[in-house]
Protein backbone atom coordinates (compact mmCIF):
# COMPACT_ATOMS: atom_id res chain seq x y z
CA UNK A 1 0.00 0.00 0.00
CA UNK A 2 1.51 3.31 -1.01
CA UNK A 3 1.25 6.47 1.02
CA UNK A 4 -1.50 8.06 -1.09
CA UNK A 5 -3.81 5.11 -0.71
CA UNK A 6 -3.08 5.07 3.05
CA UNK A 7 -4.23 8.67 3.31
CA UNK A 8 -7.36 7.97 1.28
CA UNK A 9 -8.29 4.97 3.38
CA UNK A 10 -7.69 6.94 6.57
CA UNK A 11 -10.16 9.61 5.43
CA UNK A 12 -12.66 6.98 4.40
CA UNK A 13 -12.46 5.24 7.76
CA UNK A 14 -12.93 8.49 9.61
CA UNK A 15 -15.89 9.78 7.55
CA UNK A 16 -18.60 7.93 9.50
CA UNK A 17 -17.09 9.22 12.73
CA UNK A 18 -17.14 12.78 11.38
CA UNK A 19 -20.75 12.41 10.31
CA UNK A 20 -21.73 11.05 13.72
CA UNK A 21 -20.00 13.93 15.40
CA UNK A 22 -21.76 16.52 13.27
CA UNK A 23 -25.17 14.96 13.93
CA UNK A 24 -24.77 15.99 17.52
CA UNK A 25 -24.12 19.59 16.57
CA UNK A 26 -27.23 21.75 16.82
CA UNK A 27 -28.63 23.12 13.60
CA UNK A 28 -31.25 25.80 13.00
CA UNK A 29 -33.84 25.41 10.28
CA UNK A 30 -35.55 28.54 9.10
CA UNK A 31 -38.69 27.89 7.07
CA UNK A 32 -40.50 30.53 5.04
CA UNK A 33 -44.08 29.82 4.01
CA UNK A 34 -45.08 31.85 0.97
CA UNK A 35 -48.13 32.19 -1.22
CA UNK A 36 -50.62 32.28 1.64
CA UNK A 37 -53.86 33.39 0.00
CA UNK A 38 -56.14 33.72 2.98
CA UNK A 39 -54.28 35.27 5.94
CA UNK A 40 -56.27 33.50 8.62
CA UNK A 41 -55.72 30.46 10.82
CA UNK A 42 -52.42 28.65 11.09
CA UNK A 43 -49.84 26.67 9.21
CA UNK A 44 -49.89 23.22 10.80
CA UNK A 45 -46.57 21.55 10.23
CA UNK A 46 -45.01 18.18 11.07
CA UNK A 47 -41.28 17.52 10.65
CA UNK A 48 -40.01 13.96 10.16
CA UNK A 49 -36.48 12.61 10.34
CA UNK A 50 -37.01 9.20 8.74
CA UNK A 51 -38.87 7.69 5.84
CA UNK A 52 -40.63 5.30 8.20
CA UNK A 53 -41.96 8.06 10.40
CA UNK A 54 -42.89 10.15 7.34
CA UNK A 55 -44.95 7.23 6.05
CA UNK A 56 -46.95 7.05 9.24
CA UNK A 57 -44.98 4.42 11.10
CA UNK A 58 -43.53 6.80 13.64
CA UNK A 59 -43.94 10.21 15.17
CA UNK A 60 -42.71 13.52 13.81
CA UNK A 61 -39.66 14.98 15.54
CA UNK A 62 -41.37 18.35 15.67
CA UNK A 63 -44.93 19.51 15.19
CA UNK A 64 -45.65 23.19 15.18
CA UNK A 65 -48.27 25.76 14.46
CA UNK A 66 -47.43 29.10 12.86
CA UNK A 67 -49.95 31.92 12.66
CA UNK A 68 -50.75 32.49 8.98
CA UNK A 69 -51.41 36.21 9.34
CA UNK A 70 -49.84 37.46 6.10
CA UNK A 71 -48.93 36.26 2.62
CA UNK A 72 -45.55 35.11 3.87
CA UNK A 73 -44.69 33.90 7.37
CA UNK A 74 -41.56 32.36 8.86
CA UNK A 75 -40.57 30.11 11.67
CA UNK A 76 -37.25 28.79 12.95
CA UNK A 77 -36.73 25.37 14.46
CA UNK A 78 -33.74 25.45 16.82
CA UNK A 79 -31.65 22.57 18.04
CA UNK A 80 -32.36 20.05 15.31
CA UNK A 81 -29.58 17.52 14.82
CA UNK A 82 -28.10 17.88 11.34
CA UNK A 83 -29.49 15.27 8.99
CA UNK A 84 -32.23 14.50 6.52
CA UNK A 85 -35.77 15.75 7.10
CA UNK A 86 -39.11 16.11 5.33
CA UNK A 87 -42.06 18.33 6.21
CA UNK A 88 -45.79 17.90 5.72
CA UNK A 89 -48.06 20.86 6.28
CA UNK A 90 -51.48 22.25 5.66
CA UNK A 91 -52.94 25.70 6.01
CA UNK A 92 -55.71 25.43 8.57
CA UNK A 93 -57.57 28.39 7.12
CA UNK A 94 -60.56 28.13 9.45
CA UNK A 95 -58.42 27.45 12.52
CA UNK A 96 -60.33 24.34 13.59
CA UNK A 97 -57.15 22.29 13.87
CA UNK A 98 -58.22 19.86 11.16
CA UNK A 99 -57.50 19.53 7.48
CA UNK A 100 -60.93 19.89 5.93
CA UNK A 101 -62.04 17.55 3.20
CA UNK A 102 -65.12 17.50 1.00
CA UNK A 103 -67.65 14.66 1.43
CA UNK A 104 -65.62 12.46 -0.94
CA UNK A 105 -62.42 12.94 1.08
CA UNK A 106 -60.66 15.44 -1.19
CA UNK A 107 -58.66 18.05 0.80
CA UNK A 108 -60.14 21.51 0.56
CA UNK A 109 -57.56 23.41 2.65
CA UNK A 110 -54.16 24.14 1.07
CA UNK A 111 -51.38 21.65 1.77
CA UNK A 112 -47.73 21.35 0.82
CA UNK A 113 -44.54 19.39 1.39
CA UNK A 114 -40.91 20.36 1.80
CA UNK A 115 -39.04 20.85 -1.50
CA UNK A 116 -42.50 21.86 -2.77
CA UNK A 117 -42.77 18.21 -3.69
CA UNK A 118 -46.14 17.05 -5.02
CA UNK A 119 -47.99 13.78 -4.99
CA UNK A 120 -50.58 12.35 -7.35
CA UNK A 121 -53.87 12.16 -5.46
CA UNK A 122 -51.88 11.71 -2.26
CA UNK A 123 -48.82 12.78 -0.33
CA UNK A 124 -45.48 13.54 -1.90
CA UNK A 125 -42.90 10.77 -1.38
CA UNK A 126 -40.09 10.92 1.19
CA UNK A 127 -37.62 10.78 -1.69
CA UNK A 128 -39.09 13.93 -3.24
CA UNK A 129 -39.78 15.81 -0.01
CA UNK A 130 -36.63 15.10 2.02
CA UNK A 131 -33.77 17.58 2.30
CA UNK A 132 -30.56 18.04 4.29
CA UNK A 133 -30.35 20.22 7.38
CA UNK A 134 -26.71 21.11 7.95
CA UNK A 135 -24.80 22.23 11.02
CA UNK A 136 -25.41 25.94 11.50
CA UNK A 137 -28.35 27.54 9.74
CA UNK A 138 -30.38 26.06 6.88
CA UNK A 139 -33.25 27.87 5.22
CA UNK A 140 -36.11 26.36 3.29
CA UNK A 141 -39.05 27.88 1.40
CA UNK A 142 -42.40 26.19 0.95
CA UNK A 143 -45.04 27.60 -1.34
CA UNK A 144 -48.54 27.10 -0.03
CA UNK A 145 -51.04 26.69 -2.84
Amino acid at each position, binding site marked *: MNRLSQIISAIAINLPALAAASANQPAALEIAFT*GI*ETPTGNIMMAVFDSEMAYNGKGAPVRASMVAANSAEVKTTLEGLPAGKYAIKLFHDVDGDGKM*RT*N*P*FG*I*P*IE*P*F*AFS*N*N*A*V*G*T*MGEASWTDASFEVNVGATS*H*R*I*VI*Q
Partner: protein
Amino acid sequence: MTPEMTIELNRRAFLGSSLLAGAAIITPDQAFAGSAPAGWTLGVADIDADIPQAAMTLIDGRVPAGFAGTLYRNGPAKFRRSGGQAGHWFDGDGMVRKFDIRGGGATLAARFVDTPKRRLETKLDAIVQPGFGTPSGPGSTLSGPDDTNSANTSMLHIGGELMALWEGGSPTLLDPQTLATKGFKTFRPDLKQMPFLAHPRVEADGTVWNLGGGGNAAIIWKLSSTGALAKAETLKLPRRSYFHDFTATARHLIIVLQPWLQEEFKFPLSTGMAWRPELGTQVMVIEKDDLSKRRIFELPAFAFFHLGDGWEESDGTIRFDGCFEADPTFGQRAASALLRGEHIRAPSPILTQVALYPNGKAQMQSAGIAAEFPANDKRVAGLPRRYTAHVGHYRSTPFPHAVGLWDWQKGRDDAYDFGDNHLVEEFVFAPRGGGERDGWLIGTTLNLTEKRTELHMIDARNVRSGPVASFAAGMPLPLTFHGIFVGA
Protein backbone atom coordinates in the same frame (compact mmCIF):
# COMPACT_ATOMS: atom_id res chain seq x y z
CA MET B 1 -33.37 20.88 -7.33
CA THR B 2 -34.39 24.25 -5.95
CA PRO B 3 -37.97 24.90 -4.95
CA GLU B 4 -38.20 27.35 -7.83
CA MET B 5 -37.34 24.61 -10.29
CA THR B 6 -39.91 22.26 -8.90
CA ILE B 7 -43.23 22.15 -10.67
CA GLU B 8 -45.44 23.74 -8.07
CA LEU B 9 -48.76 22.62 -6.82
CA ASN B 10 -50.88 25.00 -8.73
CA ARG B 11 -53.91 25.35 -6.56
CA ARG B 12 -53.60 29.09 -6.38
CA ALA B 13 -54.28 29.40 -10.07
CA PHE B 14 -57.88 28.34 -9.77
CA LEU B 15 -58.59 29.96 -6.46
CA GLY B 16 -57.18 33.31 -7.31
CA SER B 17 -57.67 36.25 -9.54
CA SER B 18 -54.89 35.13 -11.86
CA LEU B 19 -57.57 33.27 -13.80
CA LEU B 20 -59.15 36.56 -14.71
CA ALA B 21 -56.26 37.36 -16.98
CA GLY B 22 -57.58 36.57 -20.44
CA ALA B 23 -55.96 34.18 -22.87
CA ALA B 24 -54.25 35.83 -25.77
CA ILE B 25 -56.46 36.42 -28.75
CA ILE B 26 -54.78 36.04 -32.10
CA THR B 27 -56.06 35.98 -35.63
CA PRO B 28 -57.63 32.86 -37.13
CA ASP B 29 -54.88 32.27 -39.68
CA GLN B 30 -52.34 32.06 -36.87
CA ALA B 31 -54.66 29.81 -34.92
CA PHE B 32 -54.84 27.16 -37.61
CA ALA B 33 -51.27 27.04 -38.80
CA GLY B 34 -50.30 23.42 -39.23
CA SER B 35 -53.43 21.86 -37.81
CA ALA B 36 -55.72 20.72 -40.63
CA PRO B 37 -55.64 16.96 -41.15
CA ALA B 38 -57.77 15.52 -43.94
CA GLY B 39 -61.13 13.78 -43.71
CA TRP B 40 -63.05 13.13 -40.50
CA THR B 41 -59.97 13.67 -38.35
CA LEU B 42 -60.70 17.38 -38.81
CA GLY B 43 -63.31 16.70 -36.12
CA VAL B 44 -60.58 15.94 -33.57
CA ALA B 45 -57.98 18.46 -34.76
CA ASP B 46 -56.20 20.93 -32.49
CA ILE B 47 -56.92 24.62 -32.15
CA ASP B 48 -54.01 26.65 -30.88
CA ALA B 49 -55.62 29.91 -29.86
CA ASP B 50 -58.88 31.61 -29.10
CA ILE B 51 -61.13 32.74 -31.96
CA PRO B 52 -62.16 36.40 -31.77
CA GLN B 53 -65.80 37.18 -32.45
CA ALA B 54 -66.55 37.45 -36.17
CA ALA B 55 -69.64 37.51 -38.35
CA MET B 56 -70.71 34.23 -39.91
CA THR B 57 -71.80 34.12 -43.54
CA LEU B 58 -75.43 33.33 -44.31
CA ILE B 59 -75.18 30.49 -46.86
CA ASP B 60 -78.81 29.39 -47.09
CA GLY B 61 -82.31 30.50 -46.10
CA ARG B 62 -83.03 33.17 -43.54
CA VAL B 63 -83.55 33.47 -39.81
CA PRO B 64 -87.24 33.82 -38.90
CA ALA B 65 -88.12 37.43 -38.02
CA GLY B 66 -87.66 38.26 -34.36
CA PHE B 67 -85.65 35.17 -33.51
CA ALA B 68 -82.66 35.88 -31.26
CA GLY B 69 -80.50 34.02 -28.80
CA THR B 70 -77.15 32.45 -28.09
CA LEU B 71 -76.03 28.89 -28.66
CA TYR B 72 -73.15 28.04 -26.31
CA ARG B 73 -71.33 24.82 -27.19
CA ASN B 74 -68.42 23.10 -25.48
CA GLY B 75 -65.96 20.50 -26.64
CA PRO B 76 -62.31 19.52 -26.56
CA ALA B 77 -60.07 21.43 -28.96
CA LYS B 78 -56.48 20.80 -27.84
CA PHE B 79 -55.16 17.25 -27.65
CA ARG B 80 -51.54 17.41 -28.75
CA ARG B 81 -48.40 19.15 -27.53
CA SER B 82 -44.68 18.63 -28.14
CA GLY B 83 -44.54 16.38 -25.09
CA GLY B 84 -47.16 13.87 -26.23
CA GLN B 85 -50.88 13.75 -26.84
CA ALA B 86 -54.08 13.09 -24.93
CA GLY B 87 -55.06 9.43 -24.79
CA HIS B 88 -58.78 9.99 -25.26
CA TRP B 89 -61.25 12.26 -27.07
CA PHE B 90 -62.79 13.11 -23.67
CA ASP B 91 -59.52 14.54 -22.30
CA GLY B 92 -58.83 17.53 -24.59
CA ASP B 93 -59.00 21.11 -23.31
CA GLY B 94 -62.49 22.58 -23.36
CA MET B 95 -63.17 25.36 -25.86
CA VAL B 96 -66.46 27.20 -25.54
CA ARG B 97 -68.09 28.38 -28.75
CA LYS B 98 -70.60 31.22 -28.64
CA PHE B 99 -72.96 31.51 -31.60
CA ASP B 100 -75.03 34.70 -31.35
CA ILE B 101 -78.08 34.86 -33.59
CA ARG B 102 -79.86 38.19 -33.85
CA GLY B 103 -81.16 40.64 -36.43
CA GLY B 104 -81.08 37.93 -39.08
CA GLY B 105 -77.32 37.47 -38.70
CA ALA B 106 -74.98 35.32 -36.66
CA THR B 107 -71.54 35.68 -35.10
CA LEU B 108 -69.08 33.17 -33.68
CA ALA B 109 -66.48 33.54 -30.95
CA ALA B 110 -64.60 30.68 -29.29
CA ARG B 111 -62.37 30.67 -26.27
CA PHE B 112 -60.52 28.02 -24.33
CA VAL B 113 -61.50 27.56 -20.71
CA ASP B 114 -58.40 28.69 -18.82
CA THR B 115 -58.10 25.73 -16.44
CA PRO B 116 -55.17 24.85 -14.14
CA LYS B 117 -54.67 21.78 -16.39
CA ARG B 118 -54.36 23.90 -19.51
CA ARG B 119 -52.06 26.38 -17.77
CA LEU B 120 -49.72 23.67 -16.53
CA GLU B 121 -49.66 21.83 -19.84
CA THR B 122 -49.07 25.05 -21.76
CA LYS B 123 -46.13 25.86 -19.46
CA LEU B 124 -44.64 22.37 -19.92
CA ASP B 125 -45.67 22.10 -23.60
CA ALA B 126 -46.71 18.56 -22.79
CA ILE B 127 -49.86 16.60 -21.97
CA VAL B 128 -49.22 15.50 -18.36
CA GLN B 129 -52.51 15.65 -16.46
CA PRO B 130 -54.30 12.31 -16.29
CA GLY B 131 -57.88 11.73 -17.36
CA PHE B 132 -60.43 9.29 -18.70
CA GLY B 133 -57.99 7.74 -21.14
CA THR B 134 -54.79 9.70 -20.54
CA PRO B 135 -52.03 8.67 -18.11
CA SER B 136 -50.06 11.05 -15.88
CA GLY B 137 -46.92 12.48 -17.40
CA PRO B 138 -43.74 13.98 -15.90
CA GLY B 139 -44.55 17.18 -14.03
CA SER B 140 -48.15 16.21 -13.37
CA THR B 141 -49.61 17.72 -10.20
CA LEU B 142 -52.83 16.46 -8.73
CA SER B 143 -54.00 17.61 -5.33
CA GLY B 144 -57.63 17.18 -6.31
CA PRO B 145 -59.82 16.51 -9.34
CA ASP B 146 -59.96 20.14 -10.40
CA ASP B 147 -56.24 20.04 -11.17
CA THR B 148 -57.14 17.84 -14.15
CA ASN B 149 -60.54 19.40 -14.89
CA SER B 150 -60.71 19.97 -18.65
CA ALA B 151 -64.06 21.85 -18.48
CA ASN B 152 -64.83 20.42 -21.91
CA THR B 153 -68.24 18.73 -21.85
CA SER B 154 -71.24 21.03 -21.64
CA MET B 155 -72.63 24.32 -20.40
CA LEU B 156 -75.07 25.54 -17.77
CA HIS B 157 -76.63 29.00 -17.63
CA ILE B 158 -78.32 29.78 -14.33
CA GLY B 159 -78.93 32.89 -12.27
CA GLY B 160 -77.09 34.97 -14.86
CA GLU B 161 -73.98 32.80 -14.53
CA LEU B 162 -72.46 30.78 -17.34
CA MET B 163 -70.55 27.61 -16.46
CA ALA B 164 -68.43 25.21 -18.45
CA LEU B 165 -69.09 21.71 -17.15
CA TRP B 166 -66.92 18.63 -16.82
CA GLU B 167 -68.05 15.67 -14.73
CA GLY B 168 -65.33 14.78 -12.24
CA GLY B 169 -64.99 18.18 -10.58
CA SER B 170 -66.33 21.72 -10.28
CA PRO B 171 -68.11 23.79 -12.92
CA THR B 172 -65.97 26.64 -14.27
CA LEU B 173 -67.45 30.13 -14.32
CA LEU B 174 -67.18 32.07 -17.56
CA ASP B 175 -68.17 35.59 -18.50
CA PRO B 176 -71.32 35.08 -20.63
CA GLN B 177 -70.25 37.83 -23.03
CA THR B 178 -66.47 37.52 -23.36
CA LEU B 179 -66.17 33.83 -22.33
CA ALA B 180 -63.26 34.87 -20.07
CA THR B 181 -62.64 32.29 -17.34
CA LYS B 182 -63.44 33.50 -13.82
CA GLY B 183 -62.47 30.42 -11.81
CA PHE B 184 -64.16 27.36 -10.39
CA LYS B 185 -67.68 27.63 -9.06
CA THR B 186 -67.95 26.64 -5.40
CA PHE B 187 -71.54 26.20 -4.27
CA ARG B 188 -70.49 25.92 -0.60
CA PRO B 189 -66.97 25.97 0.89
CA ASP B 190 -67.13 22.38 2.08
CA LEU B 191 -68.19 21.22 -1.40
CA LYS B 192 -65.08 22.37 -3.25
CA GLN B 193 -63.78 19.82 -5.76
CA MET B 194 -66.99 17.76 -5.63
CA PRO B 195 -68.03 16.17 -8.93
CA PHE B 196 -70.82 17.85 -10.92
CA LEU B 197 -71.98 15.99 -14.04
CA ALA B 198 -72.18 17.75 -17.39
CA HIS B 199 -75.84 16.74 -17.74
CA PRO B 200 -77.85 18.65 -15.14
CA ARG B 201 -81.60 18.14 -15.48
CA VAL B 202 -83.35 21.49 -15.74
CA GLU B 203 -87.03 21.60 -14.83
CA ALA B 204 -89.43 23.89 -16.70
CA ASP B 205 -89.31 26.40 -13.81
CA GLY B 206 -85.51 26.53 -13.94
CA THR B 207 -84.82 24.30 -10.92
CA VAL B 208 -81.69 22.25 -11.56
CA TRP B 209 -80.95 18.74 -10.32
CA ASN B 210 -77.57 17.18 -10.85
CA LEU B 211 -75.43 14.29 -9.77
CA GLY B 212 -71.78 13.66 -9.16
CA GLY B 213 -70.22 10.22 -8.98
CA GLY B 214 -67.55 8.90 -6.67
CA GLY B 215 -67.23 5.12 -6.76
CA ASN B 216 -70.10 3.63 -4.78
CA ALA B 217 -71.33 7.05 -3.68
CA ALA B 218 -73.04 9.94 -5.39
CA ILE B 219 -73.73 13.53 -4.50
CA ILE B 220 -77.13 14.90 -5.42
CA TRP B 221 -77.21 18.60 -6.18
CA LYS B 222 -80.31 20.79 -6.30
CA LEU B 223 -80.08 24.43 -7.36
CA SER B 224 -82.93 26.89 -7.30
CA SER B 225 -83.75 28.72 -10.53
CA THR B 226 -81.59 31.62 -9.28
CA GLY B 227 -78.60 29.31 -9.00
CA ALA B 228 -78.59 29.12 -5.20
CA LEU B 229 -77.70 25.79 -3.64
CA ALA B 230 -80.92 24.22 -2.36
CA LYS B 231 -79.65 20.75 -1.52
CA ALA B 232 -76.43 18.74 -1.52
CA GLU B 233 -76.65 15.21 -0.16
CA THR B 234 -74.51 12.17 -0.61
CA LEU B 235 -75.92 8.69 -0.94
CA LYS B 236 -74.56 5.17 -1.33
CA LEU B 237 -75.03 3.35 -4.60
CA PRO B 238 -75.41 -0.43 -4.96
CA ARG B 239 -72.45 -0.65 -7.35
CA ARG B 240 -69.47 1.34 -8.62
CA SER B 241 -71.00 2.09 -11.99
CA TYR B 242 -69.63 4.71 -14.35
CA PHE B 243 -72.28 7.26 -15.28
CA HIS B 244 -71.96 10.29 -17.52
CA ASP B 245 -75.64 11.19 -17.34
CA PHE B 246 -78.77 10.51 -15.30
CA THR B 247 -82.39 11.52 -15.77
CA ALA B 248 -85.46 12.66 -13.87
CA THR B 249 -89.22 12.84 -13.89
CA ALA B 250 -91.16 15.63 -12.16
CA ARG B 251 -90.97 13.58 -8.93
CA HIS B 252 -87.98 11.26 -9.33
CA LEU B 253 -84.29 11.10 -9.97
CA ILE B 254 -83.28 8.11 -12.10
CA ILE B 255 -79.73 6.77 -11.91
CA VAL B 256 -78.92 4.15 -14.54
CA LEU B 257 -76.18 1.86 -13.23
CA GLN B 258 -74.66 0.11 -16.24
CA PRO B 259 -72.36 -2.85 -15.55
CA TRP B 260 -69.34 -0.82 -16.63
CA LEU B 261 -67.79 -0.72 -13.19
CA GLN B 262 -65.02 1.33 -11.61
CA GLU B 263 -63.24 -1.64 -10.10
CA GLU B 264 -60.03 0.24 -9.36
CA PHE B 265 -59.20 3.89 -8.91
CA LYS B 266 -56.23 4.51 -11.16
CA PHE B 267 -55.24 6.60 -14.15
CA PRO B 268 -56.23 6.54 -16.90
CA LEU B 269 -59.65 6.14 -15.28
CA SER B 270 -60.97 3.92 -18.08
CA THR B 271 -58.25 1.35 -17.37
CA GLY B 272 -59.72 0.82 -13.90
CA MET B 273 -63.18 0.15 -15.38
CA ALA B 274 -64.43 -3.31 -16.32
CA TRP B 275 -67.44 -4.47 -18.38
CA ARG B 276 -69.47 -7.04 -16.40
CA PRO B 277 -72.51 -7.79 -18.60
CA GLU B 278 -73.46 -10.79 -16.47
CA LEU B 279 -74.53 -8.32 -13.75
CA GLY B 280 -77.11 -6.63 -15.98
CA THR B 281 -78.05 -2.97 -15.71
CA GLN B 282 -79.71 -1.58 -12.61
CA VAL B 283 -81.95 1.48 -12.51
CA MET B 284 -82.24 3.32 -9.22
CA VAL B 285 -85.30 5.54 -8.77
CA ILE B 286 -85.16 8.10 -5.96
CA GLU B 287 -87.93 10.43 -4.84
CA LYS B 288 -86.86 14.05 -5.13
CA ASP B 289 -88.76 15.05 -1.99
CA ASP B 290 -87.32 12.24 0.13
CA LEU B 291 -83.98 10.93 -1.05
CA SER B 292 -84.26 7.98 1.33
CA LYS B 293 -87.12 6.54 -0.77
CA ARG B 294 -85.38 4.41 -3.38
CA ARG B 295 -86.32 1.54 -5.68
CA ILE B 296 -84.10 -0.63 -7.87
CA PHE B 297 -85.19 -2.08 -11.23
CA GLU B 298 -83.28 -4.73 -13.18
CA LEU B 299 -82.66 -4.67 -16.94
CA PRO B 300 -80.44 -6.63 -19.33
CA ALA B 301 -76.92 -5.25 -19.66
CA PHE B 302 -76.30 -2.24 -21.86
CA ALA B 303 -73.72 0.53 -21.95
CA PHE B 304 -74.67 4.16 -22.40
CA PHE B 305 -73.59 7.76 -22.19
CA HIS B 306 -76.80 9.75 -22.73
CA LEU B 307 -80.40 9.76 -21.58
CA GLY B 308 -83.46 11.85 -22.43
CA ASP B 309 -85.75 13.44 -19.85
CA GLY B 310 -88.07 11.00 -18.07
CA TRP B 311 -91.73 11.17 -17.08
CA GLU B 312 -94.32 9.41 -14.96
CA GLU B 313 -97.71 8.25 -16.23
CA SER B 314 -100.97 8.31 -14.25
CA ASP B 315 -100.63 4.62 -13.26
CA GLY B 316 -97.15 5.25 -11.85
CA THR B 317 -95.22 3.85 -14.83
CA ILE B 318 -91.97 5.74 -15.33
CA ARG B 319 -90.53 6.15 -18.82
CA PHE B 320 -87.33 7.62 -20.19
CA ASP B 321 -85.21 7.10 -23.26
CA GLY B 322 -81.55 6.88 -23.99
CA CYS B 323 -78.97 5.79 -26.52
CA PHE B 324 -77.82 2.33 -25.50
CA GLU B 325 -74.85 0.33 -26.76
CA ALA B 326 -74.30 -3.43 -26.56
CA ASP B 327 -70.98 -2.81 -24.80
CA PRO B 328 -68.69 0.16 -23.96
CA THR B 329 -66.21 -0.35 -26.81
CA PHE B 330 -66.70 3.25 -27.92
CA GLY B 331 -65.77 4.78 -24.56
CA GLN B 332 -63.13 2.19 -23.76
CA ARG B 333 -61.25 2.04 -27.03
CA ALA B 334 -62.79 3.69 -30.08
CA ALA B 335 -62.84 7.22 -28.63
CA SER B 336 -59.12 6.90 -27.84
CA ALA B 337 -58.35 5.65 -31.34
CA LEU B 338 -60.02 8.73 -32.86
CA LEU B 339 -57.08 10.85 -31.73
CA ARG B 340 -54.72 8.54 -33.63
CA GLY B 341 -56.88 8.85 -36.75
CA GLU B 342 -58.19 5.31 -36.37
CA HIS B 343 -61.82 4.29 -36.71
CA ILE B 344 -62.56 1.27 -34.51
CA ARG B 345 -66.05 -0.07 -35.16
CA ALA B 346 -68.03 -0.06 -31.93
CA PRO B 347 -71.63 -1.16 -31.31
CA SER B 348 -74.02 1.58 -32.48
CA PRO B 349 -75.93 3.55 -29.86
CA ILE B 350 -79.60 2.58 -30.35
CA LEU B 351 -82.43 4.89 -29.31
CA THR B 352 -84.34 2.92 -26.69
CA GLN B 353 -87.21 3.65 -24.33
CA VAL B 354 -87.27 2.16 -20.84
CA ALA B 355 -90.50 1.54 -18.94
CA LEU B 356 -90.38 0.98 -15.15
CA TYR B 357 -93.68 -0.46 -13.95
CA PRO B 358 -95.24 -0.05 -10.48
CA ASN B 359 -95.03 -3.84 -10.01
CA GLY B 360 -91.24 -3.64 -10.09
CA LYS B 361 -90.81 -5.02 -13.62
CA ALA B 362 -88.83 -3.11 -16.23
CA GLN B 363 -88.84 -3.30 -20.03
CA MET B 364 -86.93 -1.82 -22.95
CA GLN B 365 -88.37 -0.89 -26.33
CA SER B 366 -85.95 -0.14 -29.16
CA ALA B 367 -86.74 2.52 -31.72
CA GLY B 368 -84.56 0.52 -34.09
CA ILE B 369 -82.43 3.50 -35.11
CA ALA B 370 -78.85 4.38 -34.32
CA ALA B 371 -78.92 7.70 -32.51
CA GLU B 372 -76.99 9.84 -30.03
CA PHE B 373 -77.31 13.13 -28.16
CA PRO B 374 -81.01 12.80 -27.28
CA ALA B 375 -82.61 16.23 -26.78
CA ASN B 376 -86.09 17.42 -26.09
CA ASP B 377 -88.22 20.45 -25.41
CA LYS B 378 -87.28 21.53 -21.87
CA ARG B 379 -90.75 23.01 -21.35
CA VAL B 380 -91.90 19.41 -20.86
CA ALA B 381 -88.86 18.23 -18.89
CA GLY B 382 -90.06 15.59 -16.43
CA LEU B 383 -93.51 15.46 -18.04
CA PRO B 384 -94.99 13.06 -20.62
CA ARG B 385 -93.69 13.77 -24.10
CA ARG B 386 -93.77 12.22 -27.53
CA TYR B 387 -90.64 13.35 -29.38
CA THR B 388 -86.89 12.96 -29.00
CA ALA B 389 -84.43 14.89 -31.14
CA HIS B 390 -81.18 13.10 -31.92
CA VAL B 391 -78.29 12.80 -34.34
CA GLY B 392 -77.88 9.71 -36.48
CA HIS B 393 -77.17 8.18 -39.90
CA TYR B 394 -73.76 6.75 -38.99
CA ARG B 395 -71.93 5.55 -42.11
CA SER B 396 -68.29 5.46 -43.10
CA THR B 397 -66.97 7.89 -40.48
CA PRO B 398 -67.12 7.50 -36.69
CA PHE B 399 -69.55 10.44 -36.55
CA PRO B 400 -73.22 10.98 -37.46
CA HIS B 401 -74.40 12.69 -40.65
CA ALA B 402 -78.03 13.53 -39.83
CA VAL B 403 -80.31 15.16 -37.30
CA GLY B 404 -83.74 13.68 -36.61
CA LEU B 405 -86.84 13.88 -34.47
CA TRP B 406 -88.15 10.50 -33.33
CA ASP B 407 -91.89 10.15 -32.74
CA TRP B 408 -92.43 7.56 -30.00
CA GLN B 409 -96.17 7.48 -30.68
CA LYS B 410 -96.00 6.72 -34.41
CA GLY B 411 -92.66 4.95 -34.27
CA ARG B 412 -91.06 6.97 -37.03
CA ASP B 413 -88.23 9.38 -37.57
CA ASP B 414 -88.29 12.75 -39.29
CA ALA B 415 -84.67 13.23 -40.29
CA TYR B 416 -82.46 15.43 -42.42
CA ASP B 417 -79.20 14.01 -43.76
CA PHE B 418 -76.49 16.60 -44.35
CA GLY B 419 -74.48 14.18 -46.50
CA ASP B 420 -71.17 12.38 -46.19
CA ASN B 421 -69.16 15.57 -46.08
CA HIS B 422 -70.83 16.90 -42.90
CA LEU B 423 -70.10 15.59 -39.41
CA VAL B 424 -73.20 16.45 -37.40
CA GLU B 425 -72.94 17.73 -33.83
CA GLU B 426 -75.66 17.80 -31.18
CA PHE B 427 -78.82 19.80 -31.96
CA VAL B 428 -80.75 21.37 -29.10
CA PHE B 429 -84.37 22.52 -28.95
CA ALA B 430 -85.27 26.23 -28.93
CA PRO B 431 -88.98 26.67 -28.24
CA ARG B 432 -91.61 28.81 -29.95
CA GLY B 433 -95.40 28.57 -29.65
CA GLY B 434 -97.05 26.09 -27.34
CA GLY B 435 -96.93 22.58 -28.84
CA GLU B 436 -94.23 20.03 -28.12
CA ARG B 437 -92.78 20.28 -31.63
CA ASP B 438 -93.20 24.06 -31.76
CA GLY B 439 -89.60 25.06 -31.90
CA TRP B 440 -86.31 25.00 -33.69
CA LEU B 441 -83.53 22.44 -33.65
CA ILE B 442 -80.34 24.47 -33.50
CA GLY B 443 -76.96 22.90 -33.95
CA THR B 444 -73.72 22.75 -35.84
CA THR B 445 -71.97 20.61 -38.40
CA LEU B 446 -68.38 20.38 -39.55
CA ASN B 447 -68.30 20.67 -43.33
CA LEU B 448 -65.31 18.54 -44.40
CA THR B 449 -65.37 19.73 -48.02
CA GLU B 450 -65.36 23.43 -47.26
CA LYS B 451 -63.35 22.92 -44.06
CA ARG B 452 -65.59 25.10 -41.96
CA THR B 453 -67.99 24.89 -39.05
CA GLU B 454 -71.62 25.62 -39.94
CA LEU B 455 -74.58 26.69 -37.83
CA HIS B 456 -78.05 25.42 -38.77
CA MET B 457 -81.58 26.14 -37.67
CA ILE B 458 -84.26 23.54 -38.51
CA ASP B 459 -88.04 23.63 -37.97
CA ALA B 460 -88.78 20.79 -35.54
CA ARG B 461 -92.15 20.29 -37.27
CA ASN B 462 -90.45 19.64 -40.58
CA VAL B 463 -86.96 18.29 -40.05
CA ARG B 464 -86.76 16.46 -43.39
CA SER B 465 -86.89 19.75 -45.30
CA GLY B 466 -83.54 20.72 -43.81
CA PRO B 467 -82.34 24.02 -42.40
CA VAL B 468 -84.41 27.17 -42.64
CA ALA B 469 -81.17 29.07 -42.14
CA SER B 470 -77.50 28.06 -42.36
CA PHE B 471 -74.40 30.10 -41.57
CA ALA B 472 -70.75 29.34 -42.26
CA ALA B 473 -67.83 30.20 -40.01
CA GLY B 474 -64.50 31.22 -41.49
CA MET B 475 -62.74 28.18 -40.10
CA PRO B 476 -63.26 24.56 -39.02
CA LEU B 477 -63.52 23.91 -35.29
CA PRO B 478 -63.25 20.38 -33.91
CA LEU B 479 -66.48 18.64 -32.90
CA THR B 480 -68.21 19.71 -29.72
CA PHE B 481 -69.96 17.47 -27.20
CA HIS B 482 -72.89 19.44 -25.79
CA GLY B 483 -74.41 22.88 -25.57
CA ILE B 484 -77.34 25.02 -24.53
CA PHE B 485 -79.49 27.61 -26.23
CA VAL B 486 -80.17 30.77 -24.26
CA GLY B 487 -83.02 32.77 -25.76
CA ALA B 488 -82.64 36.53 -25.94
